[in-house]
């Protein structure tokens, strides 16, 4: 690590008279493997290090990044970036940060089985083992990745934080082909931790049961019933709805319009804190301190201590996601939602692990009193508008519910609904939580950041099914 260069950057900027400066130094080592239709397409490894520095000059935010880590190069980039920012400040926004405690901390996620100690062939063998039992007529695409990120953060208010975070991820894309028909599924897995986590994913069994389910839909699937029915959604669907229609619109930088050009704005406004947005049983949080989670961190990229944020409490909007800039604007404290995907990206307000808190129902109880309905276990196609008001989730594995029982498979049921209608229709929530991994995109240049989203099964009443 080149900590001295981060310290140097902050000191140089202070000499130039900036009101705020912070530096993030990152070192990443990783490896990746792609298996396509049982063939090892390509493998690789990567090592990178870089420095990202943010500062406020004349009230305007400046940022620069460099991986050519030498003092003279950094010095000249500081000058260039400072001059650009000063020049831009004539039409610049006047940025203020909320006051936060300075922090000195060091933390590391330990790996039980270190990914760097495994030979590439062991990882490939692992992928080939999964592939072995799948019908070779089906398209299969697997991608496995692991990395370790070491970060050193410093700001001119006295914060200094070191972290080491190992991460493993797996992604599959599967096409089942039968009777001239096809069905597809993809699913990402992601955790912080070592190879021990990959073993726990139980990929082979999950994969085989997924294939069976898709084959069953192609062979026996029926069209979804039309009109108003009850719907039970599985944790994957609860999770995506949580992320898209609650997490995103509660990001304060969207609400305030900073990200309007690309990521969009929000149907939620600042006055809506305390407004009813869903049924009373809905409680929904964003929690970065979940051990082993994909969105794990203890301090955000502005050096603020992470905590659980309660976004919806008893069906009412409770709290937004903040960084120091939006917190200052609304006269509150930051709740540590500021993250950057890499050293060369500015930190933005991001979700971490966003999920619905468990309810009182056993999963089987959710189906009991439904005469006719649809169980959408998971999904393929989804999207939501840029204010996060109207969304579509199309079921992948889905079933009819008839007289309280899950019966025939259903082909592509569509839940196309507004956010208030979705969350108001929830009348029962399961006890058991599951998470899905994802990479959440925001900002320009685009940043994909690791997150989890999830929750329990939920029952939705009186949904218009398409």
């Amino acid at each position, binding site marked *: 690590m080149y900590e001295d260069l981060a310290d140097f950057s902050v000191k140089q900027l202070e000499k130039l008279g900036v009101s705020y400066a912070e530096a993030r130094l990152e070192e990443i080592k990783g490896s990746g493997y792609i298996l396509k239709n049982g063939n090892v397409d390509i493998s690789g490894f990567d090592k990178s290090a870089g420095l990202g520095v943010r500062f406020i000059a004349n009230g305007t935010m400046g940022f*620069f990044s460099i991986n050519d880590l030498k003092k003279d190069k950094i010095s000249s*980039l500081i000058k260039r970036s400072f001059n650009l920012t000063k020049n831009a400040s004539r039409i610049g926004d006047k940025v203020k940060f909320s006051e936060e405690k300075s922090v000195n901390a060091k933390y590391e996620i330990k790996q039980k089985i270190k990914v760097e100690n495994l030979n590439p062939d062991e990882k490939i063998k692992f992928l080939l083992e999964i592939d072995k039992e799948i019908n070779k007529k089906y398209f299969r695409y697997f991608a496995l990745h692991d990395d370790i990120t070491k970060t050193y953060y410093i700001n001119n208010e006295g914060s200094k934080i070191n972290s080491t975070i190992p991460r493993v991820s797996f992604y599959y894309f599967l096409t089942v082909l039968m009777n001239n028909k*096809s069905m597809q599924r993809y699913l990402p897995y992601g955790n912080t931790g070592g190879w021990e986590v990959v073993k726990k994913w139980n990929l082979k069994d999950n994969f085989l049961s997924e294939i069976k389910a898709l084959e069953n839909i192609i062979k026996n699937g029926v069209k979804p019933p039309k009109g108003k029915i009850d719907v039970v959604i599985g944790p994957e669907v609860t999770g995506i709805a949580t992320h898209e229609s609650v997490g995103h619109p509660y990001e304060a930088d969207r609400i305030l319009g900073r*990200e309007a050009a690309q990521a969009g704005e929000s149907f939620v406004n600042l006055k809506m804190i305390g407004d009813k947005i869903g049924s009373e049983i809905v409680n929904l949080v964003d929690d970065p301190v979940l051990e082993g989670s994909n969105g794990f961190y203890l301090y955000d990229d502005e050096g603020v201590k992470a905590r659980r944020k309660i976004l919806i409490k008893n069906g009412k909007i409770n709290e937004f996601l903040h960084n120091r800039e939006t917190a200052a604007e609304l006269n509150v404290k930051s709740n540590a939602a500021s993250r950057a995907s890499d050293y060369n990206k500015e930190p933005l307000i991001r979700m971490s692990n966003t999920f619905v808190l468990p309810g009182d129902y056993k999963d089987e109880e959710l189906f009991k009193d439904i005469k006719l309905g649809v169980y959408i276990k998971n999904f393929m196609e989804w*999207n939501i508008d840029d204010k996060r008001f109207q969304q579509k989730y199309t079921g992948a594995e889905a079933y009819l519910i008839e007289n309280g029982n899950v019966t025939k498979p259903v082909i592509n049921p569509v839940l196309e609904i507004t956010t208030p209608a979705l969350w108001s229709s929830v009348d029962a929530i399961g006890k058991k939580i599951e998470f899905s991994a994802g990479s959440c995109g925001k900002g320009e240049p685009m940043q994909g950041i690791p997150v989890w989203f999830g929750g329990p099964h939920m029952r939705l009443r009186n949904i218009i099914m398409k």
Partner: protein
Amino acid sequence: MELAYYILKELKKKGADDIIIAVNKSEGSQVKFSDNKVVKTGSEILVNLEIFMAKDKKVVVTSLKDFNKGEERALIPTNLDKKNADDAIKNLIRFANNVNPNKDYNGIAEGPFRYKEIKDSYDKKIIDLNEVDLMEKGINAALENSNRTNGIIEKWFNEHLLITSNNIEAEDKSTGLYFSIRAFKDKEASGHMNSCSRVLSKFEVESSGRKAGEIAKMAIKPEEGKSGKYDVIFSHMPMAALLNNIMDAASIFEVEAGLSFFADKLNKKLGNFTLIDDGSLENGFNSSKFDDEGVPAQRNIVVNNGILKTYLHNTSTAKKYRTKTTANAGLVAPNPTNIILEGKKGDVFDIKKGLYITNVWYTRYQNHLTGDFSTIPRDGIFLIENGEITKSLKNIRVSDNFLNLMKNISLVGKENKHLKSWEAEIPVVTPEVLIKNVNISKPKL
């Protein structure tokens, strides 16, 4: 330069069959604005050395971005020293010895080649350009018809060196400019327009700003849209996003992975349009003298008068399918370069009833193989009656199929735009396009 050759020589000595070494050095800056004010500036220096190696059909890539110590050099990563290079070589060989062979791997291109200069791909005026002043002109043009604007202006320059074990040595340098502006008349009325160019003289900042403002003004007081089948005029921005999905599906990698609706469609009629991938396009934002294995850039007619003529290939995939490379390496996967759409020209607004969609986002598939997808119109959405805009609309979704869309391309407009966007990472040259009989859905309200 010496160091790249050193790595090449050492890897050869250690038994590598095919080697490609690519060195990139780029510098750039960005200015991001919100509510007409600068909210962030960004400046970047990135140096990168990538190595591709095949040994006994074992295919390995690595990228070195950790450069420590060493001498100043002009093009090569400034401080990658010999010790780091030796470590990289040792690791690469060890890694290759521990992976399985790729049965489908068939080698890289055999040089040498002659490379043509690409017109309007480098403009030194960009390096010292005052991007803040230029951005302000775009904002002011948008504010003629709107109240607030958000977006970004970017500039960059890049030097690129590529050497391979198969007699290829190639160099290129490039510059680029990108502007994206979204204008708001009120909370529900917005318009978006982008521009990209490799030279300053073709960079359309003011006209993009003005267009975004005009769309925003027309979009005020939107009414709920209705579901059904419509003839839809897709403006330049949504066409860029849709064409990205279409050309991505033309890569043989996507076809093999089950991710393409072009599977089994070679030499079949898909509609009435022509789709071109052109890595040598004048002022093309992604144009380069050569692809990632050093093959000279070329123009490929992927769909000719509606007939799918080729997938996008590199040398290895082309050999597998007994065809020629299309100069689209990508060594992991063949990639599109610059996308061009052509079709029957006419007045796209000459329809009785339909929709005019000026932007889309969030294009997602239910099934890549069949092409079933949906995407969400954003910014101005308009009802067209008897060739005129009569209403501003909101809350609709295009829920259709890519093969249907292509089949139903009817007419294209006269004016082409050169665009890239958040939703269209591959640059596109496209007119506005009239597509008949498009399925529109909407949510339960």
